[in-house]
């Protein structure tokens, strides 16, 4: 990139032999070294590099050469701005025009100066192959009630250019001042959030997570950690960018070592939203789901209601009580009982025989996805788990 390699020299030669008369009063200078570099990583799709250099100018018109062989700079995006000079210095500097030589990653600014002197200029450009991504590492407390969440930024430099001490900013969080070497990846700790409360959830959802054992109609029960990006959770200062989250759990007094619990892609999480992380399968919670009843009720001609009852046999083999979320997708139920999806919205009513206490969770449910909660005690002292039976009664209305 901006580099004073032999190219500018070649360029001088061309200028001189092509237009000896015109160039007579013009001095060609190549850019002096960088005084300051700032890399703006706030745009998700483009990286903006801003660098400052001090350019010696003579009175009149000056030619300033800038070349960027083997790097990805879109020449159209290059901005050249003169930083306001100190008050005592009355140097008036203006860019007159920019010339682009053929077949060369370079340009020549024609800069007019009211007097001889040095000008501080800022050159900004969008640089390809210099990108960032985020990763998280979290350690949960032994009782799984809180996390220490560390957020890392990984800067990947494949741009074929190195920068000395460079200020970097991701659009949020702290700034970094670090050198960026040629073709390297640098991982930096952005922030560490302590005492982030977590909600641990167990979910039975055929449409989302399928069966663990289909012949036995046992559902796969994933365990999630849910972190809310808000002030109450010691977060909520900025949206959490997408990135892989690896979660560990702390050790005991005796055995201090942490243990890896699982990882998931943390999705982009705006403030007040929840980041749900699927860590693993809860194999000690067993849910068998069967369709207990499926009756067709003719309304007229080919128009039917369907009375459907879904039965859940639930056992908690854990030695601690848990709350299980049961999620049903109404479209999925219709496909199960009718054999196909006609594409129309499902019109439905909840029946009286439904056994879930408190009915659906209004906050978490949508019209097509209903969420119920079931509280399950720990298994008994004898090791035996009580089997709980729950029913969901749904009438699908006006189907044909």
């Amino acid at each position: 990139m901006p580099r004073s390699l032999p190219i500018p020299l070649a360029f001088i030669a061309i200028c001189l032999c092509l237009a000896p008369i015109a160039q007579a009063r013009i001095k060609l200078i190549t850019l002096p070294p960088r005084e300051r570099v700032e890399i703006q990583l706030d745009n998700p799709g483009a990286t903006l590099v801003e660098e400052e250099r001090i350019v010696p100018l003579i009175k009149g018109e000056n030619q300033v050469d800038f070349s960027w062989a083997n790097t990805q700079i879109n020449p159209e995006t290059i901005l050249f701005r003169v930083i306001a000079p100190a008050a005592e210095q009355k140097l008036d500097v203006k860019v007159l025009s920019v010339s682009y030589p053929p077949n060369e990653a370079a340009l020549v600014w024609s800069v007019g100066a009211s007097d001889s002197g040095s000008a501080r200029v800022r050159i900004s450009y969008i640089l390809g192959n210099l990108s960032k991504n985020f990763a998280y590492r979290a350690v949960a407390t032994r009782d799984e009630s809180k996390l220490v969440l560390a957020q890392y930024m990984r800067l990947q430099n494949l741009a074929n250019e190195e920068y000395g001490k460079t200020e970097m900013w991701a659009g949020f969080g702290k700034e970094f001042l670090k050198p960026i070497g040629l073709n390297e990846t640098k991982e930096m700790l952005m922030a560490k959030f302590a005492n982030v409360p977590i909600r641990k959830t167990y979910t039975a959802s055929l449409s989302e997570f399928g069966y663990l054992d289909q012949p036995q109609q046992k559902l796969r029960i994933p365990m999630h950690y849910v972190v809310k990006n808000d002030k109450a959770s010691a977060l909520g200062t900025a949206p959490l960018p997408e990135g892989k989250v690896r979660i560990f759990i702390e050790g005991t007094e005796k055995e201090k070592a942490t243990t890896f619990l699982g990882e998931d892609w943390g999705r982009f999480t705006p403030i007040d939203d929840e980041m749900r992380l699927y860590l693993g399968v809860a194999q000690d919670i067993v849910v068998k789901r069967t369709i207990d009843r499926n009756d067709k009720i003719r309304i007229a001609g080919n128009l039917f209601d369907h009375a459907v009852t879904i039965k859940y046999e639930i056992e908690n083999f854990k030695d601690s009580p848990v709350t299980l979320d049961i999620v049903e997708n109404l479209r999925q139920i219709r496909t199960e009982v009718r054999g196909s999806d006609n594409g129309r919205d499902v019109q439905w009513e909840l029946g009286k025989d439904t056994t879930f206490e408190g009915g659906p969770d209004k906050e978490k449910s949508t019209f097509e996805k209903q969420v119920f909660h079931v509280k399950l005690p720990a298994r008994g002292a004898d090791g035996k788990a009580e089997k709980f039976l729950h029913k969901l009664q749904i009438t699908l209305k006006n189907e044909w």
Partner: protein
Amino acid sequence: MKITLLALLMIAPLAAQARNVDLSTVPKRNTVQLTIYNSEDLTLVRETRAITFKKGANPLQFSWANTLIDPTSVELKFITSAEKLEVLDTTFPHDKPQMLYWNVQSEFDGEATVEITYFTSGISWSADYVAVADKDEKQMGLEGFVRVSNNSGEEYEDAQVRLVVGTINLVEKIAQLAQVPMSAVDKLGEKNRSELRLRVAKDAMAPMAGAALGGGKAMEEKEIIKEGLSEYFIYSIEGTETIRNGWSKRMRSFEAKSVPFKIQYRYRPAEYGDQLVRMYLLTNKKEDKLGTTPLPDGVVRVFRDNGRDGLSFLTQQAIKYVPIGDKIELNLGPDRNVIFELIKLRASRDEIWMHVDGVDVYRRVGQPGVQVEVNSSVAGWDDHELYTQRVRNYTAKPIEVEVRRAFPGHVVFRSQLKATAHDYQTVQFTATVEPGKKSDLLFEILRHEGRNSKQNNVTIEETEVKP
């Protein structure tokens, strides 16, 4: 044998990213701990080393050529003097894969213990079981084993080993992250696994002697400590183990004697295929001498004392994870001494409805006579099928038989079998058959067909059915 390199170099400061690096010390591992997962090709390695820091910037180089380490997982922590040390950043040079630099800022001159953790692939463990039923098939002995295999490319000497039982979520394979060509890893792994299976079959018959291949105490069997953690279970093997690259090691994880069990015969085509199978049913609970640990996925080999100071091999099957308190169901396959047949005794149709298509009138030419013919075709009917589910017990003991049958369509199931609905289209009933006896379990199926079919479910009617 390839030469692997897992090295931590302390670099003379200032020459941080230089290509020709002066190295002052190569701190050795003090301790190493492996936490091996069985649901994914993943092992968490934790090692401690002692490093002498200087005040100021301390560039640390860590490299892992020819290993299967995920570079994104490598982490450095300070066990001692943590408040005086800080990792400023981590740098991965692109031209030298399998290497990183930590930029450590120290506020003091002196030694500190650091902990390095990372994920590697290539180390795995699996469980297997040996069940030996007594002659009367009332009780059994059940032994559980764990086998650790190391194909990671790295030797782990005197390592503390922990095994994690459970299904963790991994969004990217560690082996891919380690940038080893997947094809090579796959072939290597498969070869080892098939060899392992052969050896396991032999081992199963051999008496369990001190199975250790090296390291550890010679004569005493090691204890495996089990504890629950979040959704998983952790087995910690007592002491340390040396697990060389390419080797595997099998250890007993538990042993239970005189575990009571029950025998049941089951017909469940969706689970066991179209046959009546014999089951050993036991429960993973304390009062049954089990219940100390959930049983991880693994192969169970079932034997029976043949009463002549020898064993009979009954079956080998893979079982899925069994929580503490849950049932263990061992399918021994069909029993030649129990004959199970479904015989159709009768079929008939009634409630036949004709659809009147039209009326044709015929008149005889030249002579008096008019004929009216109504054209019609069958539009609805009921099929009646009478079956006997015949079970003959040639064993020496009374047996319990459980039958599940699914009937699609609009069906009425009539019997005196006290049948229950397993789901809206599946009927279940049980019966006991005395030794040497034949039992005919009669039922009638009424299928509403054509326009008589109004539902898609089974209704159970308790009524007398005669052959």
